[in-house]
């Protein structure tokens, strides 16, 4: 029994078994909460910036200027068992529980700078680790818009100065 207990104690000490508790927080949810107070057809982009602060993502989509405010918070608990001997290795993810909380506000402004639509939503991930927010249209649109902006920035890196000097219509 003692031998078995010692062997079991050695497993975690050697790094074969680990229990990990992680938390990651990005941004503050305050602007997202305040976005609920804005009025479509009345609030302007100027007022929105004064009230909510700078957006996390801003871009032009078709005939609207779209702004996002985002806050993200995740917690995870994982139990991992791994074993390595010469060329052989084995890794098993025994337990994984946790949650992800994504708070997102999306505001669309018209050419005159007045708020057309405001969508404010809280998303929570499923216990199984599947991110349900991805199935929601607003969240998936946000991810698409973010990817689009990342590409725009990469493409603009080389010719930004040229674009700035270009005369406007």
């Amino acid at each position, binding site marked *: 029994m003692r031998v078995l207990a010692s062997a079991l*104690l050695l497993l*975690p*000490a050697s790094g074969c*078994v*680990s*229990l*990990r*508790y*992680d*938390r*990651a*927080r*990005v*941004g*503050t949810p305050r*602007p997202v909460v305040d976005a609920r107070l804005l009025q479509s057809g009345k609030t*302007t*982009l*100027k007022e*929105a*910036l*004064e009230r*909510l*602060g*700078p*957006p*996390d993502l*801003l*871009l*032009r989509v078709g*005939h*609207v*200027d779209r702004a996002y405010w985002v806050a993200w918070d995740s*917690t995870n608990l994982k139990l991992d068992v791994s074993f390595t001997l010469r060329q052989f290795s084995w890794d098993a993810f025994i337990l994984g529980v946790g949650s992800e909380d994504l708070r997102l506000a999306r505001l669309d402004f*018209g*050419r005159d*700078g007045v708020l057309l639509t405001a969508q404010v939503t809280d998303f929570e991930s499923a216990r199984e680790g599947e991110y349900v927010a991805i199935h929601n249209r607003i969240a998936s649109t946000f991810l698409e818009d973010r990817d689009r*902006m990342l590409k725009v*920035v990469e493409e*603009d890196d080389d010719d*930004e100065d040229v*674009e*700035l000097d270009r005369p*406007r219509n």
Partner: protein
Amino acid sequence: MRTALPVLLPLVLAGCFFGKTKDQRPWGEEEVARIQVGKTTKAEVLRLLGPPKQIVRLLESEAYMYSHSIQKETGTYLIVFNMHRTDTQYDAITVIINRQDVVTAVGHRFDAEKAGYGFPWQD
């Protein structure tokens, strides 16, 4: 004593770390306070805040976006049980400039210093 050893051993061999990652902030709240809607020009914004991190072309204007982040990490390793927490907060300024090169809107947030160390369960 033998019973206490397995409990005490992880505490003796435990490790922890604190990490801080930040990028340079070339501007402060005083500079932002000098920006006046309807008065300040694009040239003055560039002089006050420097080049923006990102320029976004909107329908009738341009957005100059400045941001600076601080990420604080806390890790505790008790051999069997490991904890890790990251908190990332931002300072950011967005300046909207119209086709006449005049500022029409400003939004700012100075939250980067609010990033904190702590355990995963702490807010």
